[in-house]
């Protein structure tokens, strides 16, 4: 019973982590930009959907679609306005996007989105019993969405022409130019796709609780943790990282006590990286192998 509980919710937690980090990982894999505005975009989508549904009384589905589109547009805009002038200076990219993310989050705080009333509707209500453990449909849906998106992402970057070209560009711009893709356009697209994925994640995960601003900061940390553990640019790594952390958390929480959850989580990252510095599935950038 307890084991079933751990297995089921470990899976749920892994899916939540994977979904949360997916947008960040995609953007990094396609354009090499570490988008530290990820958390800001995530919450932006959540709040936008809430405002549209509760203030303008739009149907939930419409509000969700609009929120995803808005996040994607903003992602592209961030590239155009903020990232393009500092393209290639990694530190400036990180700081600029981090500042954008914090600005988004704190703008919502200033506008008074700090109270406890921001609740997104789950896609489906109710729960079902799996081997004696009751799980709600929303969590099962999260697993499903996570799986579908991860598979889609893998297919997109490995099998489609445009995906391959985009990925090629992250390594070598000439290749991409020869396929006829303009570098800036592609990078903007990768930011937009990443932001869109962040929005999808927000709309499926946020209904589990209520929306609050500090979640935005946590989301960025989760995205970093998962992708670093798995290897920054790899979809397989993303899934592996999410599973390791998700189950590590659930196991720790059940058998060691929840207060150890984050300590174990952090220790796992530090340990993995100390042994395999570029993450589980990342391309190694160690000295020995560059010679």
């Amino acid at each position, binding site marked *: 019973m307890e084991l079933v509980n751990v297995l089921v919710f470990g899976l749920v937690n892994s899916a939540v982590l994977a979904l949360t980090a997916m947008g960040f990982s995609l953007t990094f894999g396609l354009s090499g930009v*570490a988008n530290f505005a990820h958390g800001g975009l995530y919450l932006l989508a959540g709040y936008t959907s809430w405002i549209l549904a509760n203030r303008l009384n739009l149907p939930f589905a419409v509000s969700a679609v609009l929120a995803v589109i808005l996040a994607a547009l903003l992602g592209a805009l961030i590239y155009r306005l*903020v990232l393009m*002038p*500092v393209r290639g*200076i*990694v*530190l*400036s990219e990180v*700081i*600029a996007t*981090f*500042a*954008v993310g*914090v*600005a988004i989050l*704190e*703008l919502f*705080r*200033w506008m008074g989105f700090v109270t406890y009333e921001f609740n997104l509707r789950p896609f489906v209500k109710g729960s079902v019993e799996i081997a004696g453990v009751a799980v709600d449909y929303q969590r099962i849906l999260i697993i499903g969405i996570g799986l579908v998106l991860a598979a889609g992402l893998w297919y997109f970057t490995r099998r489609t022409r445009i995906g391959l070209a985009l990925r090629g560009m992250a390594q070598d711009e000439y290749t991409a130019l020869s396929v006829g893709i303009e570098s800036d356009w592609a990078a903007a697209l990768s930011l937009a796709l990443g932001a869109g994925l962040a929005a999808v994640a927000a709309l499926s995960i946020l209904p589990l609780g209520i929306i609050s601003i500090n979640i935005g900061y946590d989301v960025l*940390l989760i995205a*970093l*943790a998962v992708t*670093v553990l798995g290897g*920054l640019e790899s979809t397989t790594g993303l899934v592996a990282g999410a599973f390791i952390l998700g189950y590590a958390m659930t196991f720790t929480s059940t058998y060691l006590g929840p*207060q*150890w959850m*984050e*300590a174990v989580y*952090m*220790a796992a*990252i*530090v340990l993995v*990286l*100390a042994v395999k*510095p*570029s*993450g589980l599935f990342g391309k190694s*950038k*160690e*000295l020995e192998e*560059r*010679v």
Partner: protein
Amino acid sequence: MVKRGYRKERLDRGIKARSDDIFAIASWRETLYLILPRAAVIVSLLAFPLLKDVLGHYWQNVMLITCTIALLALSWDLLASVGLVSLGQALFFGVGAYLAGFLSRTFGWTPLLTIPASTVAGALLCTAILFPVLRLRGIYFGLITFALPLLMMRMIEATKILGGTEGLSGLPPLPDITFELYLVITAALVCAFGFKRLMDTDYGLVLRAIRDNDRSVLASGINIQWYKAQAVFIAALPGTFAGAFLTHHYQFVGMPAFALDFSILPLTSVVIGGAGTFAGAVLGAFILVPLSEVLRAFGTLRVVIYCSFLIIFTIGLPEGIFRFIERKYHQFERVVPLEEVRA
């Protein structure tokens, strides 16, 4: 087609101290030209504590925090010149802060003893903590260092050591604010000029070489890990000092000593000021911290405005303010008629 017009021409004044080339200072005027900017900074910083009646207690406190962040920024800049990009300066700060708290709580030492002791011991401890991950490069090293302070925080929270979530309060204070100011300002100045001098020696050359091309350094018979460890130790010194110092200033140390702000602020200071110059790091801190204080008037909007400034600076002056000023100081512009250009 023939275009006529004027263009601006930039000329180098050609007076620089300690460049890679051989140089000679010819006259008093040129000596003054070189020394004046440095002297002005040192004098005005050292004069600051004397103005306590004019500026009041609050701005003195701001000065303390500014210098603290400047120290952490200097530490960041030194690490970066060996090629280690840290996203976790809070580690140094927190280790120093907690060591000072621990030493004075357990052994009852005075701050005059705990500060130097925890500065050195803290730097050693940080070096030991970071040693296994020194072979990581680029963003991976950054992300590990990002995680380490958070890990420390969680460890203290989970194990309840060193006061757990409550922290240690009621620690002994330093004599008075003037003393504190002189201590921290001197530390910042010594680090800024000392680091600059250090990087100009052959030793510093080796450190810079490790960042540029570690393969050749290795083939030159130099143990990279060992030199990186030394660099981490040196870089940790100002950080642990800052932590120990603020612990005694506030007579309190707690989990927020590992707070994200202590990682982010130094980093942004360097980016604003200009990396690799040390003076830029200090300048950045002296812009960002007071700016953030001035912006307090805006309440919760403050952070948004602050972030906007940050974005503008990073986009507008990617080389950093210090390099910009330096260039302007060493060059003069004049307008010359444009030669005929055939297009």
